[in-house]
């Protein structure tokens, strides 16, 4: 009896998980199918859409890579992501350290204040920022995005890093000062190496958050060759009213999977930032 009950519970668990996996991952499975399906197969309403009724093809990939700006989108995304990572590290790491270390009251409040700016959404800021971009002549330039994306990476990453720095005992850097380093030296030579996993987390987030961004890129960039993957795929792979579903799905899939793999690995730390003190 106990065994049957156990089996039933197992079965129930797998069914439940299976259902959720289906819900979460099906759109991506759907992309895989469309990527390799011949157009004729894709656009026959009577064919079973879940299977290959005709042999698979690489035509869509060829079209995507050689007849669109897709490679350029990937490159633009990488350039922007890299620059945003650099700006974020240069500002968030020192700020987080200072807030975590010299936080007697005002540091904590300022830290929370910085975090709250993360809640000011792009939807409120994109109109004035688009005016900024045109004022400085940065419309249609990757620079506009490079300068704007830190508005959401800095608040979040500063907050995240504050938590990391707080876990490093103060003794260690005081010891380093006694051992012969300056205040600044103790920070860069002893504390930063100890916070390396936090800093790595920030690198991953600054990059993925830049890659995910949509609104600013949509607002500031309209020249195809300057677009990022996030807006290039949904806006450019449509000729007139005709969606090129094969290349579209291929483009979405190829850009999604690598970033998803890395992000999955770091998600727990990301969430630790959201929940602040709520989980001990």
């Amino acid at each position, binding site marked *: 009896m106990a065994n049957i009950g156990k089996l039933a519970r197992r079965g129930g*668990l797998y069914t439940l*998980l299976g259902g*959720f*996996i289906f*819900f*979460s991952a099906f*759109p*991506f499975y*759907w992309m895989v199918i469309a990527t390799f399906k011949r157009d004729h197969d*894709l656009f026959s*309403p009577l064919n079973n859409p*879940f299977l290959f009724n005709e042999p698979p093809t690489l035509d869509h990939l060829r079209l995507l890579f050689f007849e669109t700006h897709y490679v350029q989108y990937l490159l633009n995304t990488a350039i922007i992501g890299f620059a945003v990572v650099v700006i974020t590290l*240069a500002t968030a790491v*020192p*700020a987080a*350290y*200072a807030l975590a*270390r*010299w936080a007697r009251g005002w540091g904590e409040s*300022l830290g929370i204040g*910085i975090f709250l*700016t993360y*809640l*000011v*959404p792009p*939807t*409120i*800021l*994109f*109109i*004035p920022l688009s*005016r900024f971009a045109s004022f400085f002549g940065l419309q249609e330039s990757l620079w506009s995005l490079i300068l704007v994306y*830190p508005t959401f990476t*800095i608040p979040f990453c500063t907050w995240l890093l504050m938590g990391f720095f707080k876990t490093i005992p103060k003794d260690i850097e005081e010891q380093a000062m006694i051992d012969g380093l*300056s*205040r*600044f030296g103790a920070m860069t030579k002893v504390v930063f190496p100890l916070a390396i996993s936090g800093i790595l987390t920030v690198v991953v987030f600054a990059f*993925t958050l830049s890659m*995910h961004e*949509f609104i600013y890129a*949509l607002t500031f960039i309209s020249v195809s060759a300057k677009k990022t*993957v*996030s807006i290039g*795929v*949904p806006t450019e792979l449509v000729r007139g009213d005709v969606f090129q*579903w094969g290349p*579209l*799905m291929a*483009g979405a899939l190829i850009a*999604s999977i690598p*970033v*998803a793999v890395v*992000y*999955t690995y770091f998600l*727990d730390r990301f969430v630790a930032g959201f*929940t*602040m*003190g*709520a*989980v001990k």
Partner: protein
Amino acid sequence: MKDTVHAARPGGGRGGILDREGALAKLLIAPAVLYIVAMIGAPFVLAVLYSLSDATTGDPSLHLVGFRNFAAVLEDPVFRLALRNTFVFTLLSQSIVIVLSRILANALLKPFRGKWLVRFLILLPWTAPISLGTIGWLWMFDSIFSPIDWVLRYLGLLGTATGLLGPQTNMYWLGVPGLAMASVIIVNVWRILPLATVIQLGGLSSIPKDLIEAAEVDGASPWRRTLMITIPLTLPIVSIAFLFGIVFTFTDLVVVYVLTRGGPVQSTQVLSSWTFFKGIEAGDLAQGAAISLFMFPVLAVVAILILRMARRTEVV
């Protein structure tokens, strides 16, 4: 002897900036604060100014005209619809997310094989760029080639004279007002569910095991344990998941923009998309800014709630 050499080293004293804590702290914090003031603070002020002006993309100079824009915006039936849609869309999707994420988090706590792969697949909607994921849904909601419709037809629910859902061959998911709203909500649930699940997982695994065991020893039934221990103890974390979900859904533009662009006949228009269409595509900076500012009070309330929640849990 060594000492005198040290003392004479230039810049070696407390006077050196690299040794003075107060000055160093300000120096380290300054870049981040300046960035935030210049790129979030200043644009926010400008947004407020625009909302009180008659600026357009063609003539962006600031002539303050008072609250005329807010009045005009409130008169606009599309705005009212967008306002209502935003609340419906946010609250419905987040309520569903909270329930589903709790169920999913509980399932993920149990031991099973291939956890990493399951985790990866379940997190995909959050970890992949949202606009690209939504494109996948756009294809799934296609008016002719939707696989959902194909299954419904296969099951005989659609496309036959006796079909439960009607004789037409397709549902036109994004072409019918009610269905379009449902589609947008489904995609948002899909998108936020992984984040909420991971937050809930954190909360569930932080409950001390001995508390549950103590309750078991005291003879509490599983239901009672859930009701009396798990739910109260994870309430703060659930609230935080809910509040962040609200922030992300309330201000999101991508799902609506990619799936429906607010259509059909504005039935899925929300504040963020309406801001974009008014402010950028139609070039009315003033009204666009005014519309976007209607989001602010809700966000402020949510922020206060998040802070309270975090503070309360720290006290416990």
